[in-house]
């Protein structure tokens, strides 16, 4: 079973986000970029499937500029077998990303596509569902547990009401939630090994995908900040304050 796993290069999750004063976006100069944490979980899951003998090959794919090669090298260092970069300097929105991934799926014929449930930059949470819709495949989003059994997968999903389990036929698209696994740390020898693994670069234009309708970002602003209020000294004072404000 071939597994395709998508990785996005995003502003590192530890970065303090600064909105540019001219409203044109957030500050990305001199900011650390890393693999989207949800995608890291997806890569880890794919590698675990391979280690368990359920997957035969793990292909990591990314869409973006040349720097995405670093992100793909991280996926290779974690244990992916090969990597594919669809190169473009344009902003790629979820619908277009899903169309690109569909094209790669048709070429590579994986039985499972693993993607992070959302990227921590645009927080869109759309690409996996869109890809599944375009392919007409089952989708199991927000996965916290994945069990492959022959041609089906049992997926436990983190939904608002609790944990939902679905059974889906393969091929399928699965999107990873936080508790699916804990990604491994990359060790130095793995980084060395990753340098020798194949990383193919394809120009987006060569895939001949028609442009999609997109959404324009008019401006980016800083969110309203909450201010600290008062401090009370005791439980009694807290109850008195809550009563004074008609909250209890």
């Amino acid at each position, binding site marked *: 079973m071939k597994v395709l796993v998508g990785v996005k290069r995003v*502003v590192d999750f530890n970065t303090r*986000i600064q909105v540019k004063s001219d409203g044109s976006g*957030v500050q990305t100069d001199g900011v650390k970029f890393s693999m989207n944490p949800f995608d890291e979980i997806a890569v880890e899951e794919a590698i675990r499937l391979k280690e368990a003998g359920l997957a035969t090959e793990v292909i990591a794919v990314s869409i973006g500029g040349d720097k995405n090669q670093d992100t793909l090298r991280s996926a290779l260092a974690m244990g992916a077998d090969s990597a594919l970069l669809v190169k473009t300097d344009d902003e790629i929105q*979820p*619908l277009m990303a*899903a169309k690109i991934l569909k094209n790669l799926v048709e070429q590579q014929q994986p039985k499972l596509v693993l993607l992070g449930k959302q990227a*921590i930059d645009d*927080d*869109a*949470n*759309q*690409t*996996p*569902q869109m*890809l*599944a*819709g*375009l392919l*007409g495949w*089952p*989708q199991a*989003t927000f996965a*916290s547990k994945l069990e492959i059994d022959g041609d089906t997968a049992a997926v436990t*999903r983190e*939904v*608002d*009401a*609790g*944990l*939902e*389990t*679905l*059974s*889906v*036929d393969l091929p*399928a698209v699965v999107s990873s939630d*936080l508790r699916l696994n804990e990604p491994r740390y990359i060790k130095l020898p793995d980084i060395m090994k990753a340098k020798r693994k194949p990383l193919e670069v394809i120009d987006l234009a060569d895939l001949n995908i028609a442009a999609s*309708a*997109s*959404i324009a*970002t*008019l*401006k*980016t*602003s800083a*969110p309203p900040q*909450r201010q*600290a*209020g008062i*401090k*009370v*000294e*005791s*439980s*009694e004072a*807290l*109850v008195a304050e*809550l009563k004074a*404000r008609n*909250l209890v």
Partner: protein
Amino acid sequence: MNKILVIAEHANGVLNSSTARAVACAAAIGGEITVAVLTTGSCDVAAQAAGLEGVVSVAELTNPGNAQALAALQAPQLLEISAGYTHVLAPNSTFGKDLMPRLAALLDRPMVTDIMAVQDARTFDRPVYAGNAITTVQVDDDGLVLATVRGASWPPVVQTQAPVTVECQTSDIDLPAHTRFVALDGEQGDRPDLQAAEKVISGGRGLGAAEHFALVEAVADKLGAAVGASRAAVDSGWVPNDLQVGQTGKIIAPDLYIAAGISGAIQHLAGIKDAGTIVAINKDPDAPIFEVADIGLVADLHEVLPALTEML
């Protein structure tokens, strides 16, 4: 005039309040609001939707495949009826997040996630970077607008009006058999739903152990509040994951939010930004939660919570 379709979220015969919140957003966009209710045939939920303020019609789609809300089965049914609308909205709950992008892909349309505010009928504010920035985005062609609605930003419309007519139609399209519901493991307690509750009390790492969550629950029961938790408490296995409040859990906007033993990691704060009043109880005076709390009490929650239970 805009024709807005709002997809209802419901379970066990009860309309989720997230639907009334999405209707509130639809009302801000302005236009004729229709609620789509996908069921197996029982009309209870459609009747509830028919009483929501501002709704002019309810379209009930019945199909045996609607016993559970599975995106792969519901998106094709909605595809059938989406033509003729200018907007299709759904709550930005796990239900709407699962369904809407799939529907958008079938319609070959982009989608707006998590509307916080409406600037005009095609221009919306939405959070990015875990709520650390807000973008104003525009669907700048004349095609269908698809979006999910951030519940915490939209107080639900009320159930006041005389119910409008429910148009029932049986969907006879072939639905895929490749996706099957197996089970739902959820807490069915007596407490109010976390996302709908007016009062919420959450516990965090400061509780120290699973059994101390009873202290939080005692205050919750006294207040009629829902119980939540920080990621640390969930990751420690003290409470189930569906209680998690924060960017990767639930984003809530109760009138009163009490954070007990929660330091206030940025991920947690992203989930409570829209709360009315935030109360923080923590023994660490430097905990970041105090920077956003309206009322702070620097004290040991193991003493404060029993005292609150006593006094409230």
